């Protein structure tokens, strides 16, 4: 599950390969993040539990906000937040250096004489405010960055794999995509989709699994960033997947009505806004043929959280790691939202993480098995 120094595991040629020093630097970031998570944060949790037991924080309409106010006066609380954010900044710094060193090689690897798929960028496209206003996950330049190269995608891919600490499918970072496809096969075991769309596809980590699961389908991905899409295309080509990537907003895509059999998104909604979320659900309905299936996969919702500290800790992560719609996406009533978007046969629950949509056990139930072990899913039929 994790990556180590000995497992130089180059999952595909586009993944920026670190040299000795860069690998140690990335492992340092990984270890620093684990240290913050396992050694620093638990003490804050203990402090929170003492404060909560005292009853003052609980006796409020918003115990998480009350707890936050109490803890904000503690030096160790603020240092924990600072260190956590610094670890994220070190991640991008380390990965950025490594990508910059091999920029020319990566660009050369992204040129193809006869590609299976395609990438279409739109120089006139303006990224939505929720992307422009704050760089998601603190990735410098943000998801919409475009310098005409594919390098921001290379940063995002390698950085994402280090960030996930190997918990989402090692350096391929693709378990969410497999899990979305596993949900599809759970609710429609015999489906043979002709056309599939991944909304907010990023570098295509969750898009390639759709092509792997349905080799005869025409697979598309849409996202806001030209650089990350150029990289997504190159990455998919090297992984042998024919995917058609296009720059645009998932809120209003350029595809015609009823164009797809399956439309899905993986952890897109919590990076948008409450208004955009509703627009994206409606767009996924518009794009489906009658009877087509939409699947929107997210991290576990707030009501699954065990305690007030977990809620506060996640809220702080959202604020200081720039997750613009964390609360909106994690506290939404998806059954109502999907129904409002016009979907029937709406299903809301947790799909067990799959490594292969066809072969993995297909388990869909009401409760979360915990972060990374299962994913929240809302699905419906057009």
């Amino acid at each position, binding site marked *: 599950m994790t990556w180590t120094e000995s497992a130089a595991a180059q999952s595909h040629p586009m993944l920026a390969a670190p040299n000795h020093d860069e690998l140690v630097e990335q492992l340092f970031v990984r270890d620093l993040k684990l240290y913050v998570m396992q050694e620093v944060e638990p003490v804050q949790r203990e402090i929170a539990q003492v404060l909560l037991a005292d009853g003052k924080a609980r006796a409020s309409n918003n115990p998480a906000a009350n707890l936050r106010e109490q803890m904000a006066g503690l030096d160790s609380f603020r240092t924990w937040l*600072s260190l956590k954010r610094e670890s994220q900044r070190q991640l991008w710094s380390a990965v950025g250096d490594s990508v910059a060193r091999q920029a020319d090689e990566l660009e050369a690897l992204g040129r193809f004489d006869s590609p299976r798929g395609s990438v279409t960028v739109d120089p006139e496209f303006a990224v939505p405010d929720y992307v422009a206003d704050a760089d998601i996950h603190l990735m410098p330049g943000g998801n919409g960055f475009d310098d005409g190269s594919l390098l921001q995608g290379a940063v995002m891919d390698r950085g994402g794999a280090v960030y996930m600490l190997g918990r989402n499918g090692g350096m391929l970072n693709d378990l969410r995509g497999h899990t979305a496809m596993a949900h599809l096969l759970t609710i429609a075991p015999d489906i043979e989709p002709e056309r599939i769309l991944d909304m907010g596809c990023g570098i295509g980590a969750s898009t390639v699994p759709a092509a792997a699961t349905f080799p005869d389908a025409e697979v598309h991905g849409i996202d806001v960033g030209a650089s990350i899409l150029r990289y997504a295309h190159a990455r998919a080509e090297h992984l042998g997947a024919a995917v058609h990537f296009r720059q645009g907003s998932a809120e209003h895509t350029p595809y015609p009505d009823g164009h797809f059999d399956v439309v899905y998104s993986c952890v897109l909604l919590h990076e948008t806004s409450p208004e955009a979320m509703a627009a994206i659900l409606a767009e996924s309905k518009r794009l489906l043929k009658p009877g087509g299936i939409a699947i929107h996969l997210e991290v576990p919702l707030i009501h699954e959280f065990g305690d007030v500290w977990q809620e506060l800790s996640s809220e702080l992560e959202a604020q200081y790691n*720039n997750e613009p719609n964390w609360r909106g996406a994690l506290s939404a009533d998806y059954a109502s939202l999907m129904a409002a978007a016009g979907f029937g046969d709406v299903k809301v629950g947790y799909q067990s993480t799959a490594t292969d949509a066809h072969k993995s056990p297909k388990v869909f139930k009401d409760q979360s098995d915990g972060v990374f072990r299962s994913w929240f899913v809302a699905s419906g039929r057009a």
Partner: protein
Amino acid sequence: MTRVPLPRTPNRLDAIPGEGGRDEQLLGMIVALTSEVTILRARLDACERLLVASGALAAGAVDHFDPDAAAQAERERARQHTIAKVLRPLREQARAELAAVKDQTP
């Protein structure tokens, strides 16, 4: 063709209430230094193990090393890179304050 470097400072870094800006700068520097020291130790460790394994390095050879001019120049560049990396927070703060001063000055 010279490439324009990728950006290094993310847009939007919310203030942590009560945390002084300089505290965060110092923390950033210490973390960066710890990273550099970790890399350095790993590289030294790899080198010494490889050299000893191949029989190329005699015991104590590093302690008696005397760099020539080319080696000194490379070591110079490496030191400057380290300084720029470690002192990044100061430069950022200064740029932000410079921009503020420029805004306020007619």
